[in-house]
Each structure stands twice: as C-alpha cells, then as structure tokens.
C-alpha cells in the first residue's frame, strides 16, 4: 500500500490509458469532421420504393443518382420519384425504340464526392446509357469531370448559377436569367425593393448567384445591405437573424439549401420576425420543402421557379394526377420534380431523333428539340439549356404558390451572365 513503486506502476498505466483515450477522441473527431464535411455519410443505401424493371436483353439501362439520405434528401427524393414515374409511363407505352428502360438507382448522400463516385460506378460498372440526377451545384461540379472523361451524358434538373457549359450535361433547370434575375426584376419593379440582403449556403451556387445579384443590384442603383454564408447543414441562425435586422433590408434573397432552411425559418419565427416585416425570396424552396417544413412556417414568403403545381394546363393536370395516383394523394409537385420528369421524355425524344443510345449522339440530337410537357412547350437551345417561362409566386398556408407574376413567353437561357462573366459563351456555339 505504501510502496512507491506500486503507485508509480499504476500511474504509468493510467497515464497510458489517458493517452489512448485522447488518441481515441482525436480519431473520433477526425472521423466526424470527415463525415460532417458539407454533408452526411451514408449508413446504408436507402431502400428503393418502386422495383425497377428487371434487365432483359431487350432493355436499356439508365442511372438515377440523387441524395436519398443526408441534408438534401428532403429535396431530392421527390425528384427521384418523378423521374421514376416518367420511366414507368414510358415503359407502359412500349419503351424507347422498342426497349424497356431498366433503372439503376444510387444514393449521393448529399456529399459531392459520393456523387462523383456513384456516377463513375453507373457509367463504368453498370454501363448505363445516360444518368438523370444531381441537385447541388457542388454535386454537379464533382460529377462534371466524370461525364466528360467518359464522354457520357447527365441530365441535370435543378436551377443553378450558370457559368458552365459542357457538352456532356443537359442543363434542364433554370439558368440565372430564368430565375434569379427575373426575381430581381420583380423585386425592383413590382415591389420597390432597393436594399437587399443576400443569405446563402456556402458553396458555388449561392456564391455565384450572389455575385450575379450584386452586379445587377448595383447596376440598377440598389444596395446590398449584407451578404452572409452558412455551411451546408448549419443549424444556428441566431446571429444571422440579428445581423439581418440590424441591416434593415427591404428583402432577403435566400439561397440556403437543404434542411438548414427549416432551422432558419423556425428561428425567424422564434425571434418574432414575420414575413410582413421581412420579405424573403427563396431560390431553393418549392412546394416540396414547404410541405416538409410546414407551410405555416414560411407562408407569405416568395419564390421564383419555372413551374408551380398551381399553374393550370391540361398537361400539368394529367401529370399531377398521375403522380398522386402513384405516390399518394397527399403528395405535392414542384419545379425540380417536373424537370426530373420531362428530362426522361426529352431523352426519349432525343434518342428517337438520333436513332441510337450513344450519349454524345443523343446530346447533339437533343439540341433544337421541342416537345409539349406539363410545363408547356419546352425547347432545348443549342447550348443544351432549356427555353422556359418564369413565375414568381407567394407561398400560401396550404402549401401551394399563388402566381404573382410570370414572363408570359419562354425565356432564352443564358449560361453566362453578361455583367458577371462578360464575353463568355458556350464554346461550341
């Protein structure tokens, strides 16, 4: 008991175990930092809700690559569902060039590097003829080199910041001049906003979108009251909200993506800020996010898209009914979903025009193609972007948007904003 060597021995052992403990903790934090960098690790691929048609000799394989888990799942799973609906409809009507479409789905887990990995797998292992997928620009930028190296084709259904032109991507979603800039026009002309606060998630889309917005705001004599970025998946908006209040903007233009929007709006409500005090125009909130977060939370805020479920047309009515019949009457439709849907039909039309499934030939054949869709007549420009109408809507507490303004005719897509990126064009035009 009083033996000093006995104590020293125990001391050494305890010191060693503390050292092991600290090493373990460092390892743990490192693992977590990796897992939490911009997204979440997948635990296991989410189960596919609809069985894909079994590959047979007279079938053709396509890939569907979206975040089925992680912070972006809230937005991307419905896009995946709409894509699958289109594929099922086409198969029921006889398929493409007599072949049924077989789907291979992969989970991007809200992590751009995983998107690149899975794209590689779909192209090289599964040998798909085209891929429908992506959401964040970070995921698209990560997948771009994969599609270019393999001379393959990605149909990208989401609105984004432009500033990119690749022959291996069909840019189905809105270019900045088809969503962001019309929303700015509406802000200046219809609402009289002069002071803008730009808030976004910290990656390429919000940063580029805000660069474009800033150039156009200052060009028109407005001011940018503040600009702030939060990491993807960030949850604490206390300071952000205070900073916004101190800056006293006429409106907040919000490019936050994923479930951080839930935290933002919940904390706005907690701070007693109503949308009457603070108009918010969001670029990544549509019917789907409103439903998942509770439309009450964000009612009265604004959004700009190329499609709202409430826009009436016979094609849209048919699409909405078909989707609800397959996925449930409580479902809602939104712009990214309808793009995921029409991309499959446009691919089918391009394949039939090209006479082959080869991705490069299909991409070339797609340029100039025009078909009728639930969004109205959609034409693909020679820069592989789509002509589409622009709508600005106000979110109602029932989760639908009331259209406040629309562009009347489809707007020609401009990948390179003339103020932010002067002189650049798509290199094959």
């Amino acid at each position: 008991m009083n033996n000093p060597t006995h104590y020293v021995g125990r001391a050494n052992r305890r010191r060693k175990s503390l050292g092991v403990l600290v090493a373990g903790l460092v390892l743990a934090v490192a693992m977590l930092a990796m897992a939490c960098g911009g997204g979440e690790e997948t635990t296991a691929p989410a189960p596919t809700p609809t069985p894909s048609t079994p590959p047979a000799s007279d079938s053709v394989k396509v890939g569907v690559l979206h975040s089925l888990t992680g912070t972006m799942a809230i937005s991307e799973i419905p896009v995946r569902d709409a894509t699958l609906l289109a594929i099922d409809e086409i198969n029921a009507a006889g398929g493409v060039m007599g072949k049924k479409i077989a789907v291979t789905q992969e989970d991007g887990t809200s992590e751009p590097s995983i998107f690149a990995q899975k794209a590689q797998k779909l192209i090289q292992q599964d040998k798909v003829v085209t891929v429908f997928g992506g959401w964040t620009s970070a995921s698209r930028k990560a997948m771009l080199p994969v599609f270019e190296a393999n001379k393959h084709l990605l149909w990208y259904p989401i609105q984004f910041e432009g500033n990119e032109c690749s022959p291996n991507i069909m840019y189905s979603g809105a270019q900045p001049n088809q969503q962001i800039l019309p929303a700015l026009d509406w802000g200046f002309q219809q609402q009289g906003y002069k002071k803008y606060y730009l808030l976004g998630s910290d990656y390429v889309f919000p940063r580029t979108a805000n660069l474009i917005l800033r150039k156009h705001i200052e060009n028109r004599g407005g001011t940018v009251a503040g600009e702030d970025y939060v990491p993807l998946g960030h949850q604490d908006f206390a300071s952000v909200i205070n900073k916004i209040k101190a800056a006293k903007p006429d409106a907040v233009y919000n490019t936050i993506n994923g479930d951080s929007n839930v935290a933002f709006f919940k904390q706005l409500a907690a701070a007693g800020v109503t949308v009457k005090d603070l108009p918010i125009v969001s670029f990544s909130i549509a019917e789907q996010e409103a439903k998942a977060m509770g439309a009450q939370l964000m009612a009265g805020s604004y959004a700009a898209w190329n499609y709202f479920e409430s826009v009436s047309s016979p094609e849209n009515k048919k699409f909405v009914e078909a989707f609800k019949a397959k996925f449930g009457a409580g479902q809602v439709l939104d712009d990214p979903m309808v793009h995921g849907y029409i991309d499959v039909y446009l691919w089918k039309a391009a394949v039939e025009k090209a006479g082959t499934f080869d991705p490069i030939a299909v991409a070339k054949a797609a340029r100039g193609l025009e078909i009728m869709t639930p969004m109205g007549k959609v034409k693909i420009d020679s820069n592989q972007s789509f002509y589409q109408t622009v709508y600005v809507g106000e979110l109602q507490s029932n989760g639908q948007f009331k259209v406040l303004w629309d562009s009347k005719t489809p707007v020609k897509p401009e990948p390179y904003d003339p103020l932010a990126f002067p002189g650049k064009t798509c290199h094959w035009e």
Partner: protein
Amino acid sequence: MTDFALVLGQSFNGLSVASILLLAALGLALSFGLMRVINMAHGELLMLGGYLAYLAYQIVPGPAFLLLGLPLAFLGAAALGAVLEVTIIRRLYGRPLDTLLATWGVGLVLQQAARNIFGATGVEVTAPSWLSGALVVQTGALQGLSISLVRLFIIALAALVLVGMVLLLYRTKLGLHIRAVNQNREMAAALGVNTRTIDMFVFALGAGLAGLAGAAFAMLLPVTPTVGQSYIVRAFMVVILGGVGSLLGTSLSAALVGSFTVVAETFMQVSFALVLLLAFVVAFLQFRPRGLVSMRSRTLDET
C-alpha cells in the same frame, strides 16, 4: 435597430447558444468526463429526444405537448442509455477505442432506424403557442431588441438542469457514490459502493440529458435522422475544452464557445466565424491541454 439593441441582442444570443451547447454537452460531460466512455451515439440520443417530442405532439396535439414531450424524451433516452450500458458499454470497460467503435455503430443503427420509421426527410415539430414569438422592444434606446421566448425557455431549462446536476452530485448520497467511483473506483468498491449500478445510472443520466436537449431543440431545429451529427462535434469540443470530468469546466467552456461564436459571427461571415472558432480551440488546447478547469485529485499521479 439601435446599436444598443444589437449589442444586447447579440449578448442574449451568446447566452442562448451557450445554453444550447451546455444542454447538448452535459450528457457527454457525464459519460465522457465521469466514466471516460467515448459515446459516439450521443448525437443520436439527441435525435431520439427530438422524435420523442414529435410523438408527444401526436399524442397530445395541443400546446401542452411539451409538458409530455420533455419528460418522455428524458426517460426514453435514459432507458435506451441504460440498455446500451448494460449490453455493450459494460463489456468494453477500459477499452476506449472499442467503445468508440461500438457506440459509432450504435449511432448508425439509430440513424437508419429513424429513417425507416419516420422517413428520411424529417418530421415537423413547432413551438407551442405559449412559446411562440418574442418579446420585442418597440421604442426607446433598445428599440428593435427581440428576446425569443423559445430561446429564453432553453436558457431556463439549461440553468435548471445544471442546478439539478450540481445538487444531485454534491447533495445526495447517490452523487457522493458517483464522485467516489469517479475518483477511485477500487476504493469505492472496497467500501461497498455498487460500481456496476453507478456506471449504468451515470450513463443513463447522460443519455437522458441528451434526449431532453433534443426535445427542447426540436422547436428551433429540424428533426431529421442526421440532426445529431450537427451537434456531436461541438459537444465533444465543449467537454474537452472545459476539462474532462468537471461540470464547472463544461459550463464555462459552453459560455466561452457560445460567446466567441456570436462575437465572431457579428463581424464576419458565419463560415469564417466557425473556422476561427476551431482555430481558437486548437490554439487554446496547445497552451492548456487539460482544458479550462483541470481536475486535481490526491493521488500521486494525475488522470
């Protein structure tokens, strides 16, 4: 908003962020600090608390759901913690890396279970009517200052929990036994303290606190399968910065991290502020590796 209001508002926010960090980290301070168990499933216990609050809302759809939700979250998470301790942690006592791995696995299982049961996109929990909105100062020198009721509630809850913990540890026989086991396990066992029961109780208490925190946070954050991941790094950081094994240290470091975050975010973009925070923590630990409050004991060596 006047400058006074901004400064005061940010001070309130600092307190709010500190209280959120404290609630999230207290459970970890118990399991890691007192038991030296690295519990990687701590974030998922937080997530469980959020989902239990959602279930409470399904059972009692009125404004009183929180009164059911908070105890339900505490007890549910504590029960799960007790089960975890008895089945897994106990067998890995003294093997911290194995415990880390095992609890990491448990965390993944819990995340996937949440996905399977509730869906991948999360569930809706909003603050009850008596907590919604804020106290807003309309005129005078503090014009524009708004004190969010939910944040005030969480600050009060954190203070209550902290006081409760201190009372438990320093005023009850159970607390005496816990401290004894923490200081010298063999001696405590020799004096008749049932160390196995104490271990289970401490771990369950830590888990229960995480659940309680999760239920409170559900009013400010989304309730999704991955919500625990957003808090676990900061919880560990607060515990290590504060000094392993010290409640006072955890409280102080929560206050420090909270105020640092808010001050930094006032003057720069949030992304940069978070980078600065981590740089600060790293630098601080270089100079004071034992954290803010280091535990001193009477044994010849220090742990």
